[in-house]
């Protein structure tokens, strides 16, 4: 086999079963790639010895006819806020640096029961409160497409590990966009499921009412395998084809204030879906601009409630940015927090009504491509957009409505940085989203690209 790292999970699973290679071959390829790309700081910990033992055990089972499913022998990474029994779960913080998980998170158990090899934990923004993965305790993670740029966050390490193929897939967590942002900025695919679709026990919370766990991988097909295991839902045997799809567009909200390359890519993606037979429908929804406002309030207040005791006693152990955000969250009043939750009700009702008219909504994932490290704002035309809140413009719609959204790559800008789009659908439509994006990616394989990194670039 020429390059194992370029295999999809599906093809890797087939190769393991045909005897073309062994689980240890996949694992060693990932470990070598992790070492080759160590300067990007995607990983917090690599469990080489445990992973090698696991690979041998799963290989033996396979050779004895025990097939646990398509993840058997596949190396995966977990964000550092997910419990792995016996391992440190620090959530990117100094405060939890000595905290050892006693039991697996449910998602960890489900992956292991399906035969996955837990390769290690990936770097993240401290306590998941931020979108740059510039972690003051464990170092900054760099974007593999251009190391001067951020990989986004908070699941930045997972995004980079998938992009450079030091893992075949990873788990991230997504509150206000932390799976979808790094998926978009690193040129991979990432799903934020609807709230409640994947158990979050054993995952350190950011904001309870919006927290989710989601799969990240190069392609939607691989994300679907992961989602199926994580949600304990089988992959449906069929789904509505793109040719029968009605896709909604929010013209006012989705087409203004975008970097030119993102605007062009959005237009091109719409045309591609039309060429694949989908019907595009313009929708008008009200007060969408308030989604980021409400998301900020909830994202500010709930983490502060969690962290308040530590802020009083150990505030010097937080990084400067996260400490300021958490303290500032204490300045949100109860009335403001409840107004934000009331807004969610009205937004959700609007989207439920919208999804009676269309199957999905298409929009850019982010108004811009990966910002330079240290940039707090981006100039788009004569309009200065905050990176923090600009990140949330489109991510906030699934986060606030509790509905699923998927980020998928569609191409590169003039600086060779990835551009992502978001497809959003109604409650329980995760598998449908994954099927639709998978069909798009099958028709447009040129959208699945590798960053210019040794080991995978041709």
């Amino acid at each position: 086999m020429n390059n194992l790292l370029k295999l999809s999970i599906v093809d890797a699973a087939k190769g393991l079963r045909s005897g073309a290679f062994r689980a240890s071959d996949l694992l060693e390829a990932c470990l070598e790639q992790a070492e080759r790309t160590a300067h990007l700081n995607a990983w917090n910990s690599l469990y080489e010895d445990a992973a090698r033992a696991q690979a041998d055990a799963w290989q033996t089972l396979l050779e004895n006819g025990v097939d646990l499913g398509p993840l058997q022998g596949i190396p995966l990474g977990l964000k550092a806020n997910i419990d792995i029994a016996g391992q440190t779960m620090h959530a990117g913080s100094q405060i939890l640096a000595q905290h050892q998980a006693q039991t697996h998170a449910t998602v960890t158990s489900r992956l292991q029961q399906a035969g996955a090899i837990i390769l290690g934990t990936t770097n993240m923004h401290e306590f998941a409160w931020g979108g740059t993965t510039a972690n003051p305790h464990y170092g900054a993670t760099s974007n593999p497409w251009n190391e001067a740029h951020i990989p986004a966050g908070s699941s930045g390490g997972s995004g980079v590990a998938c992009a450079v193929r030091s893992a075949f897939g990873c788990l991230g967590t997504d509150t206000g966009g932390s799976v979808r942002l790094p998926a978009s900025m690193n040129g991979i695919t990432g799903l934020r499921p609807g709230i409640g679709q994947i158990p979050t026990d054993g995952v350190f919370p950011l904001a309870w009412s919006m927290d989710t766990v989601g799969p990240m991988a190069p392609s939607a097909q691989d994300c679907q395998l992961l989602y199926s295991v994580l949600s304990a839902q089988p992959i449906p045997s069929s789904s509505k084809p793109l040719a029968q799809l009605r896709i909604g567009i929010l013209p006012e909200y989705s087409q203004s204030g975008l970097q030119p390359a993102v605007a062009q890519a959005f237009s091109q993606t719409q045309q591609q879906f039309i060429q694949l037979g989908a019907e595009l429908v313009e929708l008008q929804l009200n007060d969408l601009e308030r989604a980021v406002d409400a998301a900020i309030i909830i994202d500010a207040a709930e983490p502060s409630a969690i962290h308040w005791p530590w802020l009083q006693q150990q505030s010097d152990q937080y990084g400067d940015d996260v400490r300021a955000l958490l303290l500032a969250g204490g300045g949100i009043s109860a009335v403001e927090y409840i107004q934000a939750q009331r807004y969610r009700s009205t937004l959700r009702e609007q989207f439920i009504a919208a999804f009676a008219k269309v199957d999905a909504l298409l929009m850019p994932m982010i108004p811009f491509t990966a910002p330079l490290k240290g940039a707090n704002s981006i100039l788009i035309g004569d309009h200065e957009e905050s990176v923090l809140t600009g990140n949330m413009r489109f991510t906030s719609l699934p986060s606030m409505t509790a509905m699923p959204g998927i980020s998928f790559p569609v191409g590169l800008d003039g600086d060779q940085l990835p551009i992502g789009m978001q497809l959003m659908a109604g409650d329980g439509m995760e598998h449908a989203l994954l099927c639709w994006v998978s069909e798009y990616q099958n028709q447009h394989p040129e959208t699945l690209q590798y960053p210019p990194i040794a080991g995978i670039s041709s």
Partner: protein
Amino acid sequence: MINSGRPKVARTEVSMDIKTRLTMIGAPANNDQTAVSAVLSEWQERIDHLNQWATTVAPTVTPVTLRVTPLHRVTRESVDE
């Protein structure tokens, strides 16, 4: 503060100024106060917008039921140990 390009809205009766918010937080240490004020300044406009929105909706609009998430297994004691 970043000029977001969005129209300013009048502060509603339920909006607070940053000084009041800092008082709520409990007067963080001086070196934190500047950073916290900067964060609050960026959020203030957004909070004002949401408070303005709240004046336009019917009183019967209630929050979505907040999901009760299983508690994480980190305890204060486990961190202190």
